[in-house]
């Protein structure tokens, strides 16, 4: 159960090798979160993350999970929920793709959309049903500022996040009154292994800072969290920039 100060006792991460998820899990484990499931594709990183969280005193279980394998989502995730209540689910999987390459290769482009959007829809539905049965719990969805308006430089990724973002907002509204809280998190450029080697964008942030924003949002019961917070105002301006001007902006 989440306690009166917003601390959760159990956490399920979908995309357990994500740097943002790991930064969040670390901070949660230091407080009350002692039962953690790291779901993701089997990798060295996933095992290392589990080991690190165990060092912090948490009981960690690694759950084989592939966002793209939507047929398995129900089976895999219902096992997790069958073992006890999950207070917070952090949906953190996603691929950035390579825009220049993906524009030439429809299969690769579709794969980005499949993981980021279709995988999220499928697993999101399963999670929502399970949380509803508990009568409490939070689903945190890692979206992106890129979801707010697609740019020519990464519109494949951006459009997949836009779909995810819209899905999560609608899901959250549909769950009002069930005790389930859906929170959409829109980070800007985060310094992670996913963005390694890329040029840092303005207002760039760190996984730790995004984790802090997530925890504050959970405490407050926010619906939308921007990281850093200034993006809320930046994007509300950018959203209204006319297309002919927007496409000429240097970004």
């Amino acid at each position, binding site marked *: 159960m989440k306690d*009166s100060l917003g601390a959760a006792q159990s956490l399920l991460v979908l995309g357990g090798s994500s740097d943002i998820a790991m930064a969040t899990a670390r901070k949660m484990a230091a*407080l009350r979160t002692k039962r953690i499931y790291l779901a993701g594709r089997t990798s060295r990183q996933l095992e290392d993350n589990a080991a690190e969280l165990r060092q912090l005193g948490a009981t960690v279980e690694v759950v084989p999970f592939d966002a793209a394998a939507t047929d398995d989502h129900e089976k895999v995730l219902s096992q997790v929920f069958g073992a006890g209540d999950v207070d917070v689910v952090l949906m953190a999987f996603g691929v950035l793709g390579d825009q220049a390459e993906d524009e030439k290769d429809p299969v690769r482009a579709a794969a980005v959309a499949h993981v980021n959007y279709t995988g999220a829809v499928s697993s999101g539905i399963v999670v929502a049903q399970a949380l509803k*049965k508990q009568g*409490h719990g939070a689903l945190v969805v890692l979206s992106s500022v890129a979801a707010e308006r697609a740019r020519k430089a990464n519109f494949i990724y951006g459009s997949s996040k836009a779909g995810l973002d819209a899905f999560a907002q609608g899901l959250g509204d549909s769950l009002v*009154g069930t005790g389930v809280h859906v929170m959409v998190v829109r980070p800007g450029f985060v310094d992670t292994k996913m963005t390694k080697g890329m040029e840092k964008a303005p207002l760039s942030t760190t996984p730790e800072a995004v984790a802090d924003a997530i925890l504050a949002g959970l405490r*407050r019961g926010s619906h939308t969290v921007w990281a850093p917070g200034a993006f809320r105002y930046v994007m509300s301006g950018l959203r209204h920039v006319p297309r002919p001007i927007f496409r000429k902006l240097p970004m």
Partner: protein
Amino acid sequence: MAVPQQSSTGAGLHPERLYGWGMTSPSVAEVADPTALDQLSELVTGAGPRGVIARGLGRSYGDPAQNGGGRVVRTTSLNKILNIDIERGVVTAQAGVSLHQLMSTMLPLGWFVPVTPGTRYVTVGGAIGADIHGKNHHSAGSFTQHVLSMDLLGADGQIRALTPDGTPELFWATAGGMGLTGIVTQATIAFKKVETARIKADIWRAPDLDGVMAELAATDDKYPYTVAWIDCLSTGKNLGRSVLTCGDFAKLDELPAKVRREPRKFAPLSLGTVPPVPVNGLLNKMTGRVFNEMWFRKAPLRKEGVIQGVGAFFHPLDGIMEWNRVYGPAGFLQWQFVVPFGAEDTLRQIVERISAHGAPAALTVLKRFGAGNSGYLSFPTRGWTLALDFPTNTPGLATLLDGLDEKVLEAGGRLYLAKDSRMRPELLAEMYPRLEAFRKLRAEIDPHQVFMSDQARRLHL
């Protein structure tokens, strides 16, 4: 038919978002308001995999009377006083009868509830489930010590009569058992004889923490009801300055002539309701200090024989309905502990830390407990108890309280489950040595955990 038709199985089951008095960590459950025992029984036997818990007036601060995804049975429609023995002062009441109702009925007859907490809006069922205490704990013990017998609805839908002598195990597991042994349907309670419905109180100030501890220790034998309000926001030499309020029910000849005409009239004042507008941050360090200053200043240096009503003496906050709203939507929590006598240093260090942190704890209450009882999870044990309210958005509160929990545990103390909303589950077994026995008994009488609450899930009760 005057009785509204309800489906025989559902008793109006409907989803509802529930939280405790602190308005934190809500969950949604199927809620029913049964009006008859057979409905109640069906609601228990028909509960799904997430079980069922009873709920009274929702005055527990945290999550004991909620059950996310499961059933919650509100007992407040089972609110009949079934029998009154006016000679002996023995009352049999259904679980949903409130202490307010009991006072309204019994005070004019010259009897008072044996124990009342700081609010009279608690039910008999809740009073047993939390084994509540009041200002007279040092002289009268806790509520369940005055319960002569009770009926408990078990997981099998059957009702068993429990008495402290006949069925001590289940009786004392139910006292303070937070509703996890079953649902109390009715209880027979021994009342306290009073000549009037007024209190004769002595009110005076103590300059600091050592002063108030000495004064309280010296008054144990003198007054059946004692309490001190202490200022946890003042610092330096004022740290722990207090207002003591001690007294007993007035004798008839102690009342002023005007009151004597209706000596047992029970007419507590309601000063209004806190509006449901956002007043977030109304209570902060600044306003908390001002409030504490005013509370301290308005108290007399020393005044003896003050005649007060039951409401003013026992339940000052009940005059303002829904006062919990002053903390705004973020909600608040109450933290109450007891440490044994001899652990005065721990008490002092805790007050110092809270003061240094500047957490806006208004209305901090200090009191001495007498001996504990046989309740497996009953809270009171001989020692000092301190209760504080904190807005949950107080910066650094989680870490502060975790540290203070450790201090309480080191001193051999414990936290109160009716107030708790955040403690580490690991600490519970150390604080309550009979927790294992409680779990074992519960596993025997309710192997499928039909009785279940959010608090039980959180603390692995």
